[in-house]
């Protein structure tokens, strides 16, 4: 490419592209094959960009139904929670021992408080319980819990390997505390699982049921 092309030709092409008009550069386009090629190619790209811009405008302005209140904040809080969980992974043995001790204390305190065990799952008025599958079962095809759906909120079911804090499978947001995993999700589950039901309220706060244990025959 000559120096002349790199400077003057480019400057004239840039000017013409900016005003989307080839008038004034006809002679240049006629005499310089590279300019002609460049002009056609960039003009076509400009048209594609215009169409992309129009799509953006349509997606921005097409009337749609508003979402449930609090859905954005709930998602942000979930993301923050995930970030905190990610940071917890490399923590030291001391942390785990402390956490285990605290969990044991809580467990015995809870067990001592509730004979039947039903009221222990009531957290700020929302009772959550993981009902089925529990114990020895034929399959994990259907998960069912119990709990009032919080206004504007949703449920979620998470399935874990026994003792693990990292979920193997997580349901999408649910309107009711029931869920059927897909075949692909079922294939990821081991013979023994633990699972829990969570509810998310509009403000982004979450409630969690105690874990249920189940084993597939």
């Amino acid at each position, binding site marked *: 490419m000559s120096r002349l092309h790199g400077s003057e030709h480019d400057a004239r092409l*840039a000017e013409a592209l*900016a005003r989307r008009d080839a008038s004034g550069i006809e002679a240049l386009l006629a005499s310089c094959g590279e300019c002609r090629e460049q002009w056609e190619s*960039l003009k076509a790209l400009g048209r594609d960009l215009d169409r*992309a811009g129009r799509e953006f405008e349509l997606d*921005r*302005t097409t009337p*749609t139904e508003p979402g449930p209140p609090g859905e954005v904040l709930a998602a*942000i809080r979930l993301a*923050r929670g995930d970030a905190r969980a990610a940071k917890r992974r490399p923590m030291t043995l001391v942390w785990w021992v402390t956490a285990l001790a605290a969990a044991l204390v809580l467990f015995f305190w809870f067990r001592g408080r509730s004979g039947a065990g039903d009221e222990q799952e009531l957290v700020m008025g929302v009772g959550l319980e993981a009902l089925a599958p529990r114990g020895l079962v034929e399959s994990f095809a259907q998960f069912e819990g119990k709990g009032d759906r919080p206004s504007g909120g949703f449920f979620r079911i998470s399935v874990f390997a026994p003792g693990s804090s990292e979920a193997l499978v997580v349901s999408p947001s649910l309107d009711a505390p029931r869920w059927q995993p897909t075949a692909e999700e079922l294939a990821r589950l081991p013979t023994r699982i633990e699972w829990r039901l969570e509810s998310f309220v509009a403000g982004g706060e979450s409630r969690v049921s105690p874990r249920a244990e189940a084993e597939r025959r």
Partner: protein
Amino acid sequence: MTSGTRGETDPGEPPPAAVPPHAEDLRLVRAARLGDERALATLVERLACVRQFLAARNQRLGAPIEREELADLVQEVVMAVWVRLDDYGGWAALETWVYPFCVHKLQNALAKRRRRGDVLTTEEGEVLEAAPEPTRESPVDVERLNAALDRLGPPKSEVVRLRHFEGLEFDAIARRFQVPLETAKTWYYRGLKSLRAMLGEAGGVA
């Protein structure tokens, strides 16, 4: 031809303004990330655009994604946006920056459906053999274009976006960047050349 390196400026031209054109949005994002409750509340309002983009685009494609799945997508996009917020540099309006996340997630959801071979119907009851390609009713591969714009990086990517997505004239673009008019035009021209190289001369985005 320029290489399209992120944030590159051309030799002999003034650097982009130290204050990005959407500095207000950048301040909002940073404050929200630092835990400012008022900023977070404003950010939450601004991110209502996620549902708007997803719902509108889904609607225009014949509503292949149902309401519940759409709610999941909104959640996924907001989470992805939150995780990537530190990358936001204030070069584009927050909504313009968020838009590609929505296009990408919706595209993935539709591709997942195609892989499952779902039988879907449009709102009018027309049976579709599979989930439609996002490009079925749209002539441009917006996702590919946005990915190339991201690779191009500011200020050129933002000049292109301001020109085509926000419809600004070059004098307004030059004012936004506090650069001479000719510089804005040159950035645009070189930006287009880099984009063309990234997208491939033959394939284009249509």
